[in-house]
């Protein structure tokens, strides 16, 4: 099961915090507070990010890596650690596999080579490699700057390799921590809302897991692996998929290459959308179902430190809205299923039977003890602060494998026609496609703007605040320009919070990581032109 290996509190008890491809201060402000307290206690924070985001001010060092070149940087750090004899020999020998293969792969990644690819000075690469390797405790945190690339899974492998090399895994204060972007990203995966996983992380083709599910469910589990989102969109396009059930997502505005996504949704025979608010996706539906939302619904979530927590209703939902889980049961029963859940807790009790990691967690325990961190295999188990401690025990069990990875440039790079690289992300006060945050008060800058370096703006003759037309090979839009000190030359930035004003994902590239199906939101080539539509600032060019 993919999950953060450590806990937030460990960030306050470590020596080095590497924040890689994560604008933690703006996107995970409370996790950043843990980091801040860690820094106060003496931890050195290294920020690896193409943009000079605010948190670089607190950094011991900022490495301004070029978008999409993270593997080259990580492999060069590995190269230095091996070359300078900083490998944790005992750990590597006892707990890992394939070290020689990794050593062979990173041989060519000299810091000088990596400097050319990444733009990070060779000496800085050496310094940070030494800092990370020599620390007693060090942790790496990342978010979508690592994963939203056509090679996102390999990017993650490159970071895991560094932790294995130095033994910064499986002990308090050291770890590998993907920070989850939404309140239940972790739980959704843990619950088997994935094409290749059943509940509790069982692989869909694991005979033991299948047998357990078939016993509890009383029906066979489909044998064929499912399609992930990107493959589903393809299957919708070529009419293999005819009917889609969307629950609390807005793929028409949140997925890469938005114009195309809208087209394939329109192509369906039957679309059901269940949500709390009207969305662009819901507007295309044949049936729209009203669900209760936050502060109205009941159940559990799992956060970025694997903690299972309760959400509780404070209010009744509007009109005749129903709980999400209740609606699914209503449809299932109409189709002949014999489901009899009276409440969210009844469902959780069934989940416990299927997922050994959650077996010890009950609603009663959460009410009495607070949220519990999985794995929590029985009702007397206190939960688990950090994973993989077995790697340090005499009984290592399955060894952790080095996964050598090879640097490949982004799927689309700037060229003569589209000379600038666009990267996307969130801003502090806003959230995703803005459905929830568009109309809240007391915040400044409630509009989209394309951030650009002053030199680039000057080169194309743009002034701060001017409306411009931004185009990629997939679509175009009009937005305001904002000269920003955060941007390096050649890289521009937009959020995707204001899609009605500037639908950023019409520009982004749906080139996909073949292993995870995640699209390359973080890198696409664009051009920016003077805008003839000065009097129509809200106009979206189709």
């Amino acid at each position: 099961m993919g999950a953060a290996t450590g806990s937030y509190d460990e960030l306050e008890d470590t020596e080095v915090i590497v924040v890689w491809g994560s604008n933690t201060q703006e996107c995970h402000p409370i996790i950043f507070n843990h980091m801040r307290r860690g820094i106060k206690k003496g931890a050195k924070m290294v920020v690896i990010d193409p943009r000079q985001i605010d948190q670089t001010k607190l950094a011991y060092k900022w490495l301004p890596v070029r978008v999409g070149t993270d593997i080259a940087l990580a492999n060069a750090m590995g190269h230095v650690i091996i070359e300078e004899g900083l490998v944790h020999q005992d750990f590597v020998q006892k707990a890992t596999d394939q070290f020689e293969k990794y050593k062979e792969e990173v041989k060519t990644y000299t810091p000088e080579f990596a400097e050319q690819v990444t733009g990070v000075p060779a000496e800085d690469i050496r310094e940070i490699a030494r800092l990370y390797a020599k620390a007693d405790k060090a942790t790496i945190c990342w978010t979508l700057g690592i994963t939203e690339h056509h090679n996102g899974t390999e990017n993650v492998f490159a970071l895991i390799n560094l932790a294995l090399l130095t033994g910064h895994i499986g002990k308090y204060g050291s770890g590998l921590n993907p920070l989850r972007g939404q309140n239940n990203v972790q739980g959704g995966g843990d619950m088997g809302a994935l094409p290749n996983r059943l509940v509790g992380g069982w692989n869909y083709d694991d005979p033991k897991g299948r047998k357990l599910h078939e016993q509890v469910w009383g029906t066979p589990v489909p044998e064929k692996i499912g399609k992930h989102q990107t493959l589903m969109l393809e299957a919708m396009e070529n009419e293999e998929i005819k009917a889609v059930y969307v629950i609390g997502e807005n793929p028409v505005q949140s997925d890469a290459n938005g114009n195309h996504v809208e087209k394939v949704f329109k192509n369906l025979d039957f679309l059901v959308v269940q949500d709390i608010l009207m969305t662009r996706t819901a507007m295309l539906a044949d049936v729209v179902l009203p669900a209760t939302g936050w502060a109205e619904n009941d159940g559990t979530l799992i956060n970025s430190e694997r903690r299972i927590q309760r959400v509780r209703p404070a209010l009744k939902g509007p009109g005749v809205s129903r709980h999400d889980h209740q609606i699914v049961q209503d449809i299932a029963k109409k189709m002949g299923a014999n489901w009899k859940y009276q409440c969210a807790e009844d469902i959780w009790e069934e989940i416990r039977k299927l997922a050994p990691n959650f077996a010890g967690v009950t609603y009663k325990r959460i009410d009495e003890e607070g949220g519990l961190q999985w794995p929590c295999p029985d009702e007397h188990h206190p939960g688990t602060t950090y994973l993989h401690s077995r790697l340090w025990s005499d009984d290592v069990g399955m060894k952790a494998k080095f996964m050598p990875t090879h640097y490949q440039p982004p799927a689309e790079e700037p060229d003569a026609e589209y000379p600038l690289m666009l990267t996307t992300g969130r801003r502090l006060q806003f959230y995703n496609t803005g459905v929830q945050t568009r109309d809240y008060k007391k915040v400044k800058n409630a509009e989209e703007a394309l951030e650009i370096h002053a030199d680039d703006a000057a080169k194309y003759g743009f002034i701060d605040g001017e409306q411009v037309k931004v185009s990629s090979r997939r679509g175009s839009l009009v937005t305001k320009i904002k000269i920003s000190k955060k941007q390096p030359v050649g890289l521009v930035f937009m959020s995707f919070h204001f899609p009605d004003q500037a639908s950023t994902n019409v520009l982004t590239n749906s080139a996909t990581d073949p292993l995870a199906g995640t699209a390359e939101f973080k890198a696409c080539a664009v051009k920016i032109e003077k805008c003839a539509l000065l009097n129509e600032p809200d106009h979206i060019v189709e």
Partner: protein
Amino acid sequence: MLAQPNQVETICSFCGTGCGLVVEVEDSKISKVKGYKENPSSHGETCVKGALGWGYIHSDRRLTQPLIRKNGELTPASWEEALNLIATKFAEIKDKHGPDAFGCFSSSRSTNELNYLAGKFMRTVIGTNNIDSCNRT
């Protein structure tokens, strides 16, 4: 546990940090949201989104009843009508094109219980593994 009867302890609806919040209710509306001190992940802290970003819950853009497309327009309908239509159409499409003609985009914003049932529904009632949410990141 909380002292005041109009207070409910819950978890923030935005990012994956999972901060503990206390929601205060007056006249069936949220009056205040603050951090919950006892929460072991957030220790009482919350950011601007958690403390102030909940206005959408009382928005007049909330969906309050099922809608069915009739003559091209989304039109208010009863639950019975909406559920019957879904069951009929799903059964029809399954008969004609098989279970792999279905896909589900489940929600990384909703609960474990929802995601579990969505998976169980697709796998046991429809009969396909075509389910995903944005949790591979």
